[in-house]
């Protein structure tokens, strides 16, 4: 029943896509399409809500391949991700009702947007390899179309090319993964795969393929390269969906394969996942720190958060492999909760960045500044999102990272020495990346919203429209609520966590103000509510003291700056200069950051120049060599184009002989 309703919603979304294609650029099309999308997402969200505690709901449709058909299923895990997808879809559509009005080519965005939503819904509810791969490709293609929708900008076309290559690579790897799972009998339904677990060698191959295949979509290092190119290129509500939601769909695929379909997983694979997650988290945030494009910075932060999620998943895998099911449940809850949290604050931040881009026509932080005065509501929304993603209590980002840290603390009971040493160092790496994330958002918020405006556009920007603000504040409210009452969400995630960890988690009665406790009997507890109440009480006491005893006269005056105020706003610290200390500490080795100063001699009146150059190790090590190889081979094969007809006939004849010989030997 549930899955049927969800599929109906998907069908309506696809119909909306066709309708949008017909409607073209008519003025009413945008509001109508996004309105319908919001409604359909709301329906999907309700289905997901019912699906979380309910027994699996299954349907099979006589579509697709003749003998197989298509199977769809909503179990607790799918319901959790369905909720993430549809909540994201709902707020993105709401945001787009206002935001999309200023779209220059709506006919290039509108038809693909509902189809993209439909694709993500389908991936999550697919229950056989055929339905899954079809939906996965559909989702990739639709998001690609959205990435190149502003194709007149050369950069976006390049982003589209890299993205389509990486998406094809991902599918290319997932295809054999499912083929191996299906086995020689060719059983494509997930239920059949679950019944016949593969042997350990095959399982390892499947897991590696799934990690790379799904990981390339999620953005683990070094497969993240497309992400910071493609996510910012799309319109902002699509960026929010791609960065906040589509990466989570990829995480879902990894969870579905690693925790559900392959059966027991060796702890060594879990260890690899932890290591990959740690590296991804740290490098993601360091990349982000080096950016001055607001949306690209946010895209790199997605890489960081995917790293945190994968650390949680890896921990869950090793704990499960070693039979520590309670700890596995903690790590899995932490990962799933972070999936949910990240989808919230990443969407929120992209919305705010989109509002800024619309108001100022730029994403370059070095041309912004002072927007807190002209766009106060957007500024507060961005600030809350920034605090949440920087893992500051009492917001939701802290709650899920706290759980990851508590899971890491439990790792000292693991039997394997390698893990006992790796996980604490991974904890240190996560702590470093959390602190760097805070530094990065001090930079992003400071350069964009604080200080003095660095351009006329920033000075004259106007606050964004009301529906966009509504969408942002819905997310702000959920972020705050999930921060002070995380237990509500942990309880909602419990059925899915039980699915992943063989029923290790007891489902408690739902008391919103209950503090988080890592495992039963532990004394460590965290309550966002208590911290919030303490903070409010302390603020109230301070305000009362100031009101009663302090001099309350405030005089406005000129900037002090130690007596040397500089009138030109370009002398302020920019995004690059704010990151300079961290660049010197970390990037000089990692990114080969070099600073060159061209200072004219005394008396010379030409301008001085300061230039920072950086290299991207992922491109240098992992992308350029294969590209060079392809180029080299292409050069070698190139002469074949210019042969005479006799030579071509000769080559055809030789090939034929060769093939016949192969066939003869084979027989």
């Amino acid at each position, binding site marked *: 029943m549930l899955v049927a309703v969800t599929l109906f919603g998907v069908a309506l979304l696809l119909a909306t896509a066709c309708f949008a294609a017909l409607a073209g650029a008519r003025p009413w099309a945008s509001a109508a399409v996004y309105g319908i999308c919001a409604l359909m997402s709301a329906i999907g969200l309700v289905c997901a809500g019912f699906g979380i505690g309910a027994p699996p709901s299954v349907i099979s449709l006589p579509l697709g391949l003749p003998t197989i058909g298509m199977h769809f299923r909503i179990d607790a895990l799918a319901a959790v991700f369905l909720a993430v997808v549809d909540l994201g879809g709902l707020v993105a559509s709401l945001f787009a009702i206002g935001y999309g009005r200023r779209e220059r080519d709506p006919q290039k965005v509108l038809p693909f947007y509902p189809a993209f939503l439909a694709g993500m819904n389908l991936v999550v509810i697919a229950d056989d390899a055929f339905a899954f791969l079809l939906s996965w490709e559909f989702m990739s293609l639709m998001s690609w179309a959205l990435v190149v929708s502003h194709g007149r900008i050369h950069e976006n076309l390049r982003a589209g090319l890299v993205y389509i290559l990486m998406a094809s690579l991902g599918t290319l790897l997932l295809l054999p993964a499912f083929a191996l799972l299906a086995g020689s009998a060719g059983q494509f339904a997930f239920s059949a795969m679950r019944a016949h677990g593969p042997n350990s060698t095959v399982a390892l191959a499947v897991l590696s393929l799934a990690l790379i295949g799904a990981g390339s979509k999620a953005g683990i290092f070094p497969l993240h390269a497309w992400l910071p190119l493609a996510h910012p290129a799309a319109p902002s509500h699509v960026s929010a969906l791609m960065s906040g939601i589509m990466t989570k769909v990829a995480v879902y695929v990894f969870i579905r394969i690693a925790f559900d379909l392959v059966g027991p997983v060796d702890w060594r694979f879990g260890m690899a996942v932890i290591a990959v997650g740690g590296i991804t988290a740290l490098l993601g945030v360091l990349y982000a720190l080096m950016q001055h494009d607001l949306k690209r910075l946010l895209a790199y932060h997605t890489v960081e958060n995917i790293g945190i999620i994968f650390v949680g998943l890896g921990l869950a895998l090793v704990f499960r492999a070693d039979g520590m099911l309670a700890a596995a449940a903690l790590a899995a809850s932490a990962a799933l909760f972070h999936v949910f949290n990240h989808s919230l604050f990443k969407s929120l931040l992209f919305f705010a960045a989109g509002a800024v881009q619309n108001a100022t026509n730029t994403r370059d932080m070095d041309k912004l*500044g*002072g927007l*807190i005065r002209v766009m*106060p509501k957007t500024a507060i929304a961005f*600030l809350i999102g920034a*605090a949440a993603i*920087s893992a*500051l*209590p009492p917001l939701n980002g*802290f709650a899920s990272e*706290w759980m990851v840290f*508590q899971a*890491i*603390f439990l790792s000292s009971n693991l039997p394997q020495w390698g893990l*006992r040493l790796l996980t*604490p*160092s991974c*904890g*240190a790496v996560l702590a*470093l990346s*959390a*602190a*760097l994330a*805070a*530094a990065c*958002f*001090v*930079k992003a918020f*400071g350069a964009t919203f*604080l200080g003095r405006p660095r351009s006329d556009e920033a000075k004259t920007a106007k606050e964004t429209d009301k529906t966009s603000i509504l969408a942002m504040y819905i997310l702000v409210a959920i972020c705050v609520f999930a921060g002070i009452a995380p237990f509500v969400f942990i309880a909602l995630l419990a059925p899915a966590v039980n699915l992943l960890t063989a029923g290790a988690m007891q489902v408690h009665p739902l008391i919103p103000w209950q503090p988080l406790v890592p495992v039963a009997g532990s*004394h*460590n*507890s965290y309550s966002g509510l*208590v*911290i919030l109440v*303490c*903070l409010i009480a302390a*603020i109230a006491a*301070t*305000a009362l003291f*100031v009101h009663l005893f*302090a*001099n309350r006269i*405030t*005089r*406005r*005056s000129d*900037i*002090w*700056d*130690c007596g040397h*105020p500089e009138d030109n*706003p370009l002398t*302020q*610290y920019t995004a690059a*200069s*704010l990151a300079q*200390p*961290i660049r010197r*500490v970390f990037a000089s080795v990692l990114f080969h950051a070099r600073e060159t100063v061209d200072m004219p001699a005394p008396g010379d009146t030409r301008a001085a120049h300061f230039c920072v150059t950086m290299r991207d190790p992922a491109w240098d090590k992992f992308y350029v060599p294969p590209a060079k190889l392809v180029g080299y081979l292409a050069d070698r094969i190139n002469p074949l184009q210019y042969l005479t007809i006799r030579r071509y006939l000769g080559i055809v004849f030789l090939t034929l002989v060769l093939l016949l010989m192969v066939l003869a030997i084979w027989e």
Partner: protein
Amino acid sequence: MSGMLVMQIAQTVLAVAVAPLLTGMVRKVKARLQYRTGPSVFQPYRDLSRLFTKETVVAHNASWLFCAAPTFVFAATWVAAAQVPTISFDVALSPAAELIALFGILTSARFALALAGLDIGTSFGGIGSSREVMIASIAEPAILMLIFVLALVAGSTRLTDIAFFVASPSVGLRISLLLAFVGLAMIAIAESGRIPVDNPATHLELTMVHEAMVLEYSGRHLALIELAAALKLLFYVSLISAVFVPWGIAPSGGTFVQYIIAMTLYLFKLAVAAATLAFFEISIAKMRVFRVPHFIGAALMLVLLAALLRLVSQSF
């Protein structure tokens, strides 16, 4: 329950009451060590009352964030400092006094202050903020490893549990705790902006961090920020004394005499800490800002070593 609440309130008020005294003591000892008379140990109270009675001057372009930040920074630091057990184990908020969360609250305070430093759009504010977040981000892994070591030793990250465990006679001398102590002391110096990482007594020095960030503040705003800085120092001193020398802290259901003893001992520990800090500060020179990662890196290595030893054997 009501007793716990009373103790919590007492501890909260005590924190804010003695924080300027600690700063005053450090300054006094430092002055004496430099053969100066130095101002009275109560001078910070006079400074604060002077700042609170002066009018507050704010730049024309300051936003609400600039004006709200001092209150938030002070409140958050206060909440963190009040949760460290100083006179009693049995306080109402002890379940909330979990170390990761405590440091998280301090990170929130720092986040707000670093943003406030950028609000006016001056170079000094930018230099201070960018350095502050750099130092903080390097210190963070060391802090987490420290919490990990303490959790390994005491089996909990709740501060009252750790203090209670260390206070129990069964603990004895442990190398991992010793290393963690040195590590925490180094982190404390870096985080509370003392020499050799930052110098709270200077202005207009190229290496300054905290003072550059708060340069635009005056009047009651500055008073709150100064008080927050004093509270942060008190937080670290109280944390060190609670974790490594928890003796004298009154157990649950303690008598009045026990509380008096706890209080006296606490003040004594503060005096010792102030003297040690002052002695350390006069015997070392301020570091270049890009040497700070080496300093904090050493702290990280020490706590990593502690964790490693502890993982190898329970007896370390």
